[in-house]
């Protein structure tokens, strides 16, 4: 028996030699098929096919054995790799992951900035240069009948106060030619001594004659400090 065995071993030795020279097949099952084989998710036919391939393929046999190692879950409490190499590689990976995102963010910000600049330029150009119109209160000048100023919107009215003292804030009441209130602006303050600026947009007033009453507000009371008449031209 032992002679038979040693004879057989000698003969089987050829197989080992054969195996050393044999090349793996060109085609391999996909990683997903290999893991499915390991997890018993394949049909018996597929299983047999994979086993046949394993007999001929050193690469896949090694991979299958390696998969066993892989599937061992990381034990809780085992310190993870926190060495220098891992830390460096993590930083590298993180910057690689963030790379395109950051670039995207930069491009977005640049686009927003560009649009803002263009928008602002268009707005400024369409608005034209800022205009100011200084109005004197009625009855403050002597002589011939006071001429009615013509105001083109948009404009910033500069209303000169006829008061002798300053008020912490002012209120402007706009009335149409029939003395109907049409607009009121409060919490106005002096921009210069005895001058109150009232900005008016293109659609704030209708065309026609307009009267403004400026009131100085102090201690819940309001004193008239000037009245102005002008004609709106749109």
């Amino acid at each position: 028996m032992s002679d038979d065995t040693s004879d057989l071993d000698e003969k089987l030795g050829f197989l080992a030699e054969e195996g050393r020279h044999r090349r793996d097949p060109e085609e391999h099952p996909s990683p997903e098929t290999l893991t499915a084989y390991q997890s018993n998710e394949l049909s018996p036919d597929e299983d047999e096919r994979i086993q046949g391939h394993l007999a001929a393929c050193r690469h896949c046999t090694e991979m299958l054995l390696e998969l066993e190692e892989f599937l061992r879950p990381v034990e809780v409490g085992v310190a993870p790799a926190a060495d220098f190499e891992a830390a460096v590689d993590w930083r590298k990976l993180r910057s690689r992951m963030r790379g395109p995102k950051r670039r995207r963010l930069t491009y977005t910000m640049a686009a927003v900035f560009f649009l803002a600049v263009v928008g602002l330029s268009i707005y400024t150009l369409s608005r034209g240069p800022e205009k100011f119109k200084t109005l004197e209160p009625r009855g403050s000048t002597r002589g011939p009948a006071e001429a009615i100023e013509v105001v083109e919107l948009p404009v910033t009215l500069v209303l000169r106060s006829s008061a002798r003292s300053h008020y912490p804030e002012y209120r402007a009441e706009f009335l149409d030619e029939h003395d109907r209130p049409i607009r009121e602006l409060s919490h106005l303050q002096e921009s210069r001594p005895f001058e109150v600026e009232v900005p008016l947009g293109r659609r704030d007033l209708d065309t026609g004659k307009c009267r403004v009453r400026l009131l100085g507000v102090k201690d819940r009371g309001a004193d008239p400090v000037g009245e102005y008449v002008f004609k709106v031209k749109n």
Partner: protein
Amino acid sequence: MSHPLEAPGGGRERPCNLPAAVTSALADQDPTLCLIEKIKLGTQVDESSRKLFELHYRKIIGFFRSHGFSSEESRDLTQDVFYRVFKSIDTFRRESRFERWLFEIALNIYRNELRRKGAEKRDAVELSIDTASEDDEASGKIKEPGSGERSVLEALIDRERRATLIAALQSLPPQMRICCVLRFEKGLKYHEIATAMKISIETVKAHLHQARKRLTGELGED
């Protein structure tokens, strides 16, 4: 979406500080799943990603190192694996094992790298055999015919024996034959054969024992 990271504990401590609904499902599972869940939920993404990376980094590096890649190459390939993991982590389903998914990605990258290296090799400049033999001749390295080499007759006998052996192997039942090939041709250990074939070690032993008996019978008759 807000998730209380530091939810007040009511008795048992929840893993990963995730909402109760999520953690209860993960309570009995591994820390990897907790980390993935946090990444998917968008809570502590950076920290959880780093932990996940550190948890499996050595395994992946080891995988590439064990397949003959240099330290630098292994680190680069490991980067590729994790890059792909984090890019497609949303497609990972909890029903599956993360380690399995990780292995599939690593194996894909390994095979791609082999293919790339193979292509590089094919594109490399070929050296003439004649040049080498001329060099060898010049240095006196050329062996005399038959000196230390096996004779043609021996080679013919070997070939015949091999053919007989392979024919005998082919007559064995498929599973038994594959066990023999894995054992005698590839030199696998019993437990490795058992793993590859998904059978018990006892079955492997029984197959090999039977195979030896049958082969001895068949080859002895020659």
